[in-house]
């Protein structure tokens, strides 16, 4: 490792400098993910290779780190005290607070850096904002968000099954089969991560133009909302349908469709 780093530093000093902010943002993100990792380990041990970190989160983090480490020479650097302050604040034992620190630090880095390093910092900022949205803001808004999505699903399913009714975040047949819509199952929770992964894939594959990227994200948003409504509607249909859709088969099919959509639209957005 040592000779490689030395060669890179000699060839381009900025390449070595970029490691410090990249390490802080990546390490800060790991600190932000700590709660999820600990929960996953407590529940399932080491059975999951990703330690409970979602595939879209992993894609975004890896792309952000890669962009931050690209050998662009930044004209402006963050002052040393800002790096130190961020690292000290990341010691606070709260994952949500760590995401806040990463967001502020990444925003400062995005302002100071240029080129692909700036883009990388912006992706880290987006990751942190998505995490704060999912783990903090959405929990405050859990009742209205879940009830709103359940209302839409209830209205759609009610067109063909009038016996299925919605009340708050519950959809189903009273006293027979009820589906409780959890925050983690909502489009509002999953879509920001999928959109971020799409943009990350596009950035990894090329230099996407904003209009095409915006169109790809819009297509993804519509497709995701419809697919999730169909999935939730099917789960509210009956106990057997719930077992199929929520079980390994249904879950893997839905995950596969999401992945294909994100990779496909990301690839399309990256084309010139």
């Amino acid at each position, binding site marked *: 490792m040592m000779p490689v*780093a030395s060669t890179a530093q000699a060839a381009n000093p900025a390449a*070595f*400098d970029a*490691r*410090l902010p990249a*390490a*802080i943002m990546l*390490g*800060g993100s*790991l*600190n932000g993910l*700590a*709660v999820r*990792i*600990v*929960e996953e380990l*407590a529940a399932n041990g080491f059975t999951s290779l990703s330690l409970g970190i979602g595939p879209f989160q992993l894609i975004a983090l890896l792309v952000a780190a890669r962009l931050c480490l690209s050998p662009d020479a930044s004209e402006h650097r963050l002052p040393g005290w800002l*790096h130190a302050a961020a*690292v*000290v604040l*990341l*010691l*606070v*034992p*709260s*994952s949500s607070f*760590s995401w806040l620190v990463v967001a502020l630090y990444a925003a400062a880095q995005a302002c100071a850096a240029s080129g692909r390093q700036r883009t990388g910092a912006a992706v880290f900022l987006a990751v942190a904002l998505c995490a704060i949205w999912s783990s*903090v803001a959405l*929990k*405050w*808004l*859990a*009742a209205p968000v*879940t*009830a709103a999505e359940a209302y839409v699903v209830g209205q759609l399913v009610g067109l063909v099954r009038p016996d299925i009714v919605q*009340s*708050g*975040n*519950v959809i189903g047949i*009273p006293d027979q089969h*009820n589906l*409780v*819509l*959890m*925050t983690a199952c909502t489009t509002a929770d999953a879509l920001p991560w999928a959109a971020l992964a799409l943009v990350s894939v596009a950035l990894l594959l090329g230099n996407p133009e904003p209009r095409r990227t915006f169109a790809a994200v819009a297509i993804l948003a519509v497709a995701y909302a419809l697919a999730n409504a169909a999935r939730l509607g099917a789960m509210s249909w009956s106990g057997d349908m719930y077992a199929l859709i929520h079980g390994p088969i249904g879950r893997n099919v839905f995950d596969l469709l999401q992945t294909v959509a994100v990779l496909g639209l990301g690839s399309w957005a990256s084309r010139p």
Partner: protein
Amino acid sequence: MISLRARLAAVVVMLAAGLCLKAARYAGTSEASEAEAAERVSAVMTAHGWTAAGPIQRRAGGFYSRLVFERPDCPRPVLVAFLSGNAESAELVRLDHAGEVAFVQDGSVVAAPSGLHRQLAAIRHGAGRWLGRPQASPLPVLAVWPAPDAGLDVCKGPAASAWTAVERAAVAQAAALTVNEP
């Protein structure tokens, strides 16, 4: 002048220390365990003449669990449900009990649980522990059927004021335990 490599190593060590601190915090649950919550609730109910009619029952595929309390001079039981996570099963509990339910969150009787209050309670609890103050783990959101009122009818269970005292009593108990520790 500290070299970049030394700074990088220091940053990695600090970030690893941050991860260890978080692992230590999240390895212990921030909320009281179901057994601890059941014990605290049973203490309140026993003080008002109610006895648990059996062990904790899991309901709705584990979405929530509940204890049934009975009193010899009352025709119907009082049910206390424990709502895990972000209390998203609140509406289901309400439907299961014909809407006649009130929720106890962070020492207050409320019509609907609040995610914001739950997070603020967790922050208060974490900050208190961090500052070395005696802390009882916050209770999960409780759903009580029938909904507690002013307590004029003993067969409707303890009054609303009894539920607001649960958290305070637990904090006082935690403080006493801290003082008694050698």
